[in-house]
């Protein structure tokens, strides 16, 4: 049953119950205009909605009843028991139909002519009702009958059993009280499924539960103290545990009642985008994913406006006009993609567009004009850092102020609003590929997990959402202990070297003007709470760190609101009041947020915050289903596009399924081996290779695209299944990772054997050595490069590569990973450049860190070029370029030199 119908049924059942009571009341006090108006309105609503939903039987009955009531309201009829009975009979009929609707989702067949006639008769003031066919001229009902559109549904819907034997109008006439007896209390099938509860009731419940959580925490604390003092587990332990569990469950339950699907906040967007598209003359498609993701209604209310603003921005600034897009080789219709999903205790919302991306040059110019930074400062910034200027107050890049956006209240307001609810916002943008804004917000505002710390003798809570890690640091360097980092000072400003990066520090005692508790640091060491604020990190120096505690956030008194360091206050388990620190406020007060330099430092320290990130980069994987319920995956970066293909678009050429795709034939390969004969539409993963005229593409037919997830990929190889690289645990599920190389050859046998233009093919293909410690990446690179016309040799480590060199193997180029155990990429390239036959070879670095610093470091070590991992196109382009630069036949010259050297 669709939602609309379900809503209608719930609403109608409520109205019917109300109507019963109201009608009986009207019978007693026929002059009560208020009651009459209420009845008329309720019946009118039912009629209107039925018409809208295409329920002709209901509409006809409701219409006839409304007709009677209308005349009563207008004073043309006086209320008599006869009229009331007739109307009640109509209500009963409506109820029957509604019940059948609820059971079968279709209107039951049946004849209401008699009832309608009785109603019409009543409307005309004829007191008799039951004489059936007297009314064959019902002025109002007739058009409804005659109209083929509203004719009762015939075979379209599921056949329905005949209506249950009904209270016929004549029978009802005699006993007017009867319908009431089975009135409101009679449970219809819809009744128990949903009830409407006032928001204030839910809010009240939430407050009570919050208090209960507090009291529970206090009790637990008391019990702990008691146990510690008396050294025995008192009889309270077990019931306390139960109370604790029940409280948690209750908290969760009440929280659920406040949850609403985020789709509620998105409802107006399709219309908005449509209007926007018309106003600015663009073609825009709005894709919404995860609309059913639920979050607290309070949060929902607060993100509604920022989201609307961002979608509008994407459409207005982000997407190009159709002709521009066509010229750029993109589909004419721009796409705005809204995605929502849960991750931990947070909800992630992404607003992405495939438009122009943020123009770094325009932002830079604007920054200079607005005086937000100097030329010198800008020079030192990466593109990402410059793009972040759009979050600064008063910044808007639209050259023209349009009616839609660009009024100067831009992303800074969005950012402030999101930070207000403890969220963060970040952006990624690529020229001509589009921009993606990612919002991370807590599911609920009422109860949060917080870390309790102490500084200057006072305790404070720091919301766990912003805490990245805890670090212990020494205050002086003169001990033998070298494993603990030391707090150093630059002109009195404390900083910390954390994994080779500088982390700005702020001393909470100083910041809050508390009295320093001298002499407490016997070990001369402090705790540093590393917090994440937007994209920046900051270390907060505290004296002590206690537990984490679930706290109920209460707003501070109005007379304290001006202190931006606090986001609220709360009562701890021991009954004391403590202030909740606002990391955003602290960052602002200390100037960390928004300062580009700090951002950059933060970026790096954030990269390192997950120690595993070095060896195990997270990889975006596209999850899909094909032939079976278990998910399959392919690295997203290998997929060029996703398409939705109707069955009729699939043609056959020489026995192979193909489709016309962008003016050419694209071979299709069903991943399951056969094309599902029952499916009407297919999801297609499009893989492309080469460019321009040389471009070839292949479509992999799968059953369904499931999701895109970012996860650390640890693949267990299994060689025995063709087409699969192996399996990995992705998003908590065992997932088959498919081997693209295999499927590419399925599409066209010559995929791997494309001769490079101008070469004869065969063995004169350029030879490339791939040095990569990860099995998975190696498995991916080899077929990718092979497909592009290279002969590929793979080495699992730098040592292995150097052994190959010493054994006299020769290549045209080397592609090497940077992060490898033992000898890393930098060391490898230094050794290659130092001496030996490979010293002039182009060496391309592959890395997951492609920041300017990394690139410079790489260049210094001797790499010819630097390519981000998985940037397949970039790698191939770089390889081509390197080979051209090294001379068209780099291989032969090198070999010659090798001979000379030998």
């Amino acid at each position: 049953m669709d939602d609309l119908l379900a809503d209608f049924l719930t609403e109608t059942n409520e109205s019917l119950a109300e109507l019963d009571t109201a009608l009986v009341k009207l019978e007693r006090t026929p002059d009560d205009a208020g009651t009459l108006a209420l009845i008329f309105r309720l019946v009118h609503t039912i009629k209107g909605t039925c018409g809208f939903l295409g329920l002709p039987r209901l509409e006809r009955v409701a219409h006839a009843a409304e007709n009677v009531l209308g005349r009563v309201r207008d004073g043309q009829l006086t209320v008599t028991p006869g009229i009331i009975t007739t109307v009640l009979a109509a209500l009963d009929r409506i109820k029957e139909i509604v019940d059948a609707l609820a059971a079968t989702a279709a209107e039951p067949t049946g004849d209401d002519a008699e009832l309608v006639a009785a109603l019409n008769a009543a409307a005309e003031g004829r007191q008799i009702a039951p004489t059936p066919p007297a009314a064959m001229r019902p002025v109002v009902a007739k058009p409804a009958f005659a109209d083929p559109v509203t004719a009762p549904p015939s075979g379209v819907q599921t056949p329905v059993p005949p209506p249950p034997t009904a209270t016929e109008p004549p029978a009802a006439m005699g006993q007017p009280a009867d319908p009431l007896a089975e009135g409101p209390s009679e449970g219809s099938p819809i009744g128990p499924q949903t009830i409407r509860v006032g928001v204030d009731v839910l809010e009240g419940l939430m407050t009570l539960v919050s208090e209960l959580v507090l009291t529970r925490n206090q009790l637990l604390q008391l019990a702990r103290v008691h146990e510690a003092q008396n050294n025995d587990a008192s009889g309270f332990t077990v019931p306390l545990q139960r109370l604790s569990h029940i409280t948690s469950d209750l908290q969760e339950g009440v929280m659920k009642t406040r949850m609403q699907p985020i789709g509620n906040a998105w409802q107006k967007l399709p219309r908005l985008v449509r209007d926007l598209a018309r106003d600015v003359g663009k073609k825009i498609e709005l894709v919404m994913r995860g609309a059913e993701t639920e979050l607290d209604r309070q949060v929902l209310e607060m993100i509604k406006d920022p989201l609307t603003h961002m979608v509008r921005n994407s459409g207005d600034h982000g997407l190009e006009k159709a002709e521009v897009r066509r010229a750029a080789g993109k589909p004419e219709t721009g796409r705005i993609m809204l995605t929502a999903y849960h991750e931990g205790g947070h909800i992630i919302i992404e607003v992405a567009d495939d438009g122009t991306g943020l123009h770094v040059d325009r932002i830079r110019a604007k920054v200079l004009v607005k005086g937000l930074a100097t030329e010198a400062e800008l020079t030192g910034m990466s593109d990402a850092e410059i793009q972040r200027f759009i979050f600064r107050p008063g910044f808007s890049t639209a050259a023209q102020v349009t009616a839609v956006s660009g009024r100067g209240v831009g992303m800074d307001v969005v950012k402030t609003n999101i930070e207000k609810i403890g969220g963060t916002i970040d952006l990624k943008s690529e020229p001509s590929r589009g921009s993606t804004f990612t919002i991370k917000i807590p599911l609920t505002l009422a109860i949060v997990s917080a870390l309790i710390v102490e500084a200057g003798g006072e305790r404070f809570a720091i919301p766990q959402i912003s805490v990245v890690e805890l670090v212990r640091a020494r205050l002086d360097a003169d001990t033998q202990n070298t494993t603990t980092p030391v707090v150093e000072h630059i002109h009195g400003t404390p900083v910390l070297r954390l994994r080779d990066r500088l982390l700005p520090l702020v001393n909470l005692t100083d910041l809050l003007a508390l009295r320093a508790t001298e002499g407490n640091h016997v070990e001369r060491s402090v705790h540093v709470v590393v917090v994440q604020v937007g994209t920046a990190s900051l270390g907060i120096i505290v004296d002590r760190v206690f537990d984490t505690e679930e706290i109920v956030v209460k707003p501070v008194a109005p007379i304290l609101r001006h202190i931006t360091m606090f986001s609220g206050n709360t009562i701890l388990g021991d009954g004391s009041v403590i202030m909740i620190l606002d990391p955003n406020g602290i960052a602002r007060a200390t100037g960390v947020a928004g300062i580009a330099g700090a951002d950059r430092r933060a970026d790096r320290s954030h990269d390192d915050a997950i120690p595993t990130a070095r060896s195990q980069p997270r990889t975006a994987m596209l999850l899909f289903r094909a032939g079976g319920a278990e998910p399959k995956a392919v690295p997203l970066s290998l997929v060029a596009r996703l398409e939705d293909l109707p069955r009729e678009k699939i043609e056959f050429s020489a026995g192979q399924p193909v489709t016309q795709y962008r003016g050419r034939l694209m071979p299709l390969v069903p991943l399951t081996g056969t094309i599902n004969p029952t499916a009407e539409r297919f999801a297609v993963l499009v893989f492309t290779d080469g460019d321009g005229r040389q471009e070839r593409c292949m479509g992999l037919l799968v059953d369904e695209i499931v999701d895109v997830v970012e996860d650390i990929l640890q693949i267990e190889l299994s060689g025995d299944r063709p087409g699969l690289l192996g399996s990995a645990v992705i998003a908590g599920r065992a997932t088959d990772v498919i081997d693209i190389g295999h499927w590419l050859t399925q599409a066209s046998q010559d995929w791997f054997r494309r001769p490079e233009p101008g070469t004869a093919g065969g063995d004169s293909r350029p030879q490339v050595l791939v040095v990569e410690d990860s099995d998975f990446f190696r498995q991916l690179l080899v077929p990718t490069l092979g497909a592009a016309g290279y002969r590929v040799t793979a080495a699992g480590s730098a040592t292995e590569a150097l052994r190959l060199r010493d054994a006299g193997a020769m290549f045209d180029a080397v592609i090497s990973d940077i992060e490898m155990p033992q000898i890393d990429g930098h060391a490898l390239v230094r050794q290659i450049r130092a001496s030996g036959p490979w010293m002039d070879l182009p060496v391309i670095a592959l890395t997951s860190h492609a920041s300017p610093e990394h690139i410079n470091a790489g260049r210094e070590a001797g790499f010819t070029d630097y390519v981000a991992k998985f940037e397949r196109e970039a790698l191939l382009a770089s390889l081509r370029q390197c080979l051209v630069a090294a001379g068209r036949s780099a291989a032969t010259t090198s070999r010659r030199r090798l001979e000379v050297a030998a």
Partner: protein
Amino acid sequence: MNTNLLEPPVSLRQDTDYHKNNEATFVTLMVADQLCGIPVLGVRDVLGEQTITRIPLASREIAGSLNLRGRIVTAIDLRRRLGLPDAPLGTPMSVVAEQGGELYALLVDQVSEVMTLAPSSFEPNPPTLPPHWSEFSAGIYRLQDRLLVVLDVTRLLSLGPTSRGPVPHGRL
């Protein structure tokens, strides 16, 4: 008393005429040897010594916050609010008042009896009253042996970033 219940809290009345024409009941308290009164209808609670959490960076007058049966109450040091020196023995008692849905505790030296005073003994503020007293005084009652200053709670609680003497950011 019975008619008073229907009246808005006396503290909201700025005009001294009210005191001239109606009998009023006050919770009396001592601040630096001065007897003061707060209209009883504005008082929610009288507390003994409490654990008070300091609020860093707040104005000097804000003593901190305390937990009153699960509600967080902001404590205001009445001596500091009135520009008086700190009490040598501290201010152990407090009177809790509500304003705008929030609870505030006024820390005082001593809370004494509740008095009902006749309108005939009410006087407006003498013009010579020092500014920090006249700002918060709604008038004076002549008692037999001493004078009672009627405190204007609304004004006492109108504290914000603009109020006198906020602590500048930095060490105390």
